[in-house]
């Protein structure tokens, strides 16, 4: 059984009189340890898919089963608890809490889990080491560069050891040198720590790092060299193009 199973996922919303359907009966499976990149034109629905998988947006219909649990049936509160335990989210704009230090920002997700303060401290220190920012632990976001902020964001996303890490354009706000550093870090999360990653990106360099590269085109998910095949509403596997 795949770690993430998406079945017949549809998302519709209204914009004035127009009904927009960015996702139409989408099917996708992500295995544990996969590194998946999701590309597509603006408005193709890639962020919508990412948000649905991470439980911050609700689909109009369909199922998202993560680790055997259908998250589309959860209440708002249950989804919040589920996110705390299962999702590490890397934002494009870092979105660190400005009044908290790097250490406190990284510690934030752990405050929601049953854990002693000693265990929290240990985990935050490991995460800080992983992103090579131990010496910036007590700095506030305004005292950090964009790349350092994003590294803190990545540390925050991994610190609770989530089931899956999702990133929405994680290098979209960075210069090319910093992007290289962040990409190297992201790749290590997958190759060295075996973390499952799903990244939305416009950047072919980011997509190229992923073992699986998926494009959203006209409501269809097309994996590099293969199309995700749906017959009669049932997922049938991937077909060579």
């Amino acid at each position, binding site marked *: 059984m795949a770690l993430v199973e998406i079945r017949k996922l549809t998302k519709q919303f209204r914009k004035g009189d127009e009904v927009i359907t960015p996702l139409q009966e989408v099917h996708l499976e992500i295995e544990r340890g996969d590194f998946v990149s999701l590309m597509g034109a603006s408005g193709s629905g890639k962020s919508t898919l990412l948000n649905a998988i991470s439980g911050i947006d609700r689909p109009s219909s369909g199922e998202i089963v993560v680790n055997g649990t259908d998250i589309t049936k959860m209440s708002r509160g249950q989804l919040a608890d589920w*996110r705390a335990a299962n999702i590490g989210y890397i934002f494009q704009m870092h979105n660190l809490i400005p009044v908290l230090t790097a250490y406190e920002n990284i510690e934030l*997700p752990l405050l929601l889990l049953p854990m002693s303060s000693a265990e929290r401290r240990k985990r935050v220190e490991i995460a800080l080491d992983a992103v090579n920012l131990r010496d910036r632990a007590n700095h506030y976001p305004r005292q950090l560069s964009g790349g350092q902020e994003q590294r803190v964001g990545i540390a925050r996303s991994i610190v609770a050891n989530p089931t899956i890490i999702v990133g929405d354009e994680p290098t979209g706000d960075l210069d090319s040198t910093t992007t290289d550093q962040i990409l190297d870090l992201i790749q290590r999360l997958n190759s060295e720590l075996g973390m499952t990653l799903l990244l939305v990106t416009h950047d072919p360099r980011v997509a190229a790092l992923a073992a699986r590269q998926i494009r959203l085109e006209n409501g269809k998910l097309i994996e590099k060299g293969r199309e995700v095949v749906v017959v009669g509403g049932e997922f049938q596997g991937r077909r060579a193009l």
Partner: protein
Amino acid sequence: MFKFAPYVVKSLWRHRSRTLLTVNGSAVALFVFCFVGSVQQGLARLTEDQQAQRTLIVFQENRFCPASSKLPEDYAGTVAKMNGVKGVVPIKVFTNNCRASLDVVVFNGMPPKKLRSARQLTLLSGDWGQFDSRTDAAIVGQAVAQRRRLKVGERFTIGEVTVNIVGVFRSAVPAEDNYIYTHLDFLQRARGKNSVGTVTQLEVMLGEAADPDRLATEIDAQFKNGPVATSTRSKGVFQRDTLADLAELIGFAHWLGYACVGLVLALVATTTVMAVQDRIKEHAVLQTLGLRPGRIFRLVIAESILQSLAGGFLGIGAGLALLAWGGFAVGAEGVTIAFKPSLELAASGAFVSAIVGVLAGIIPGWQAARTEIVSALRYA
């Protein structure tokens, strides 16, 4: 919840000017709230005190100011013989101002021995021996001493009355801290007039079984056809009637207290709404990280309560300190209401602050908790 305390405090400190202005506004409002509460407590103490219900005041009929009540002193002997009467104290009252005033000085002339048995006074400085031996001696309530900066050994003159201060006292009844006690015969002879044989009022202490209303009627009936007709009421009613105009104003002032509460509510709610609107995206991020909407709501409520309580404690502290050190009182016709700090006042102020904090945080807290994560992340 306490794990997030640093976040709450730091969020408030982020906009420190706004927070401090709100805290100051709350402090001023709670300061006024304390003052209004203190005046109301002072009036309640005067009129509802148990001892005030078991003591009668005999005054000249149809007179309002102490200066216009002249009862024959020998009425005291007649009243003392009545069934149910435990004791009678003849009192001569002189005040510098019969109208409502914030700095009224009231002299009560009483026989020295009866003064000590009828009043629960503790001398803070000076001694009773000097008071007993000197006819122009006076002991001064601590509130008057504080207000007028009077000390033992000094002479004090007001109007045509000059006394030597031989003691400063604290009374079990806060209003009496605003009185100056002298010998009865001294005050009868003061002001260049010889009013020996007359007193302003009689204070009648009742026995356990005595019915105050029946005795009051009996006393007035006794002197109805005498040289001076009397009007007798319980001490509580007498004080309430004497201060009727002030009591009306004080009653109206409780609206001022409510206005203060409303002011704090509006102030804290406005600040909290602004703080929430500034942080729509931040709340969406927190929800993305896994904070439940209920927890976001409680964090906003905590911010609101902290601001309200900080202002409340400042205002209550300043108000109580000023009440303790200022020795404030308002008086009319020789009766005073003391403004005193009290634990009850502090507790009610803190309670009001906390409740206002909760109420002020409800709407912004609800707004923050209902933040739509995706649109807030995208557009906020």
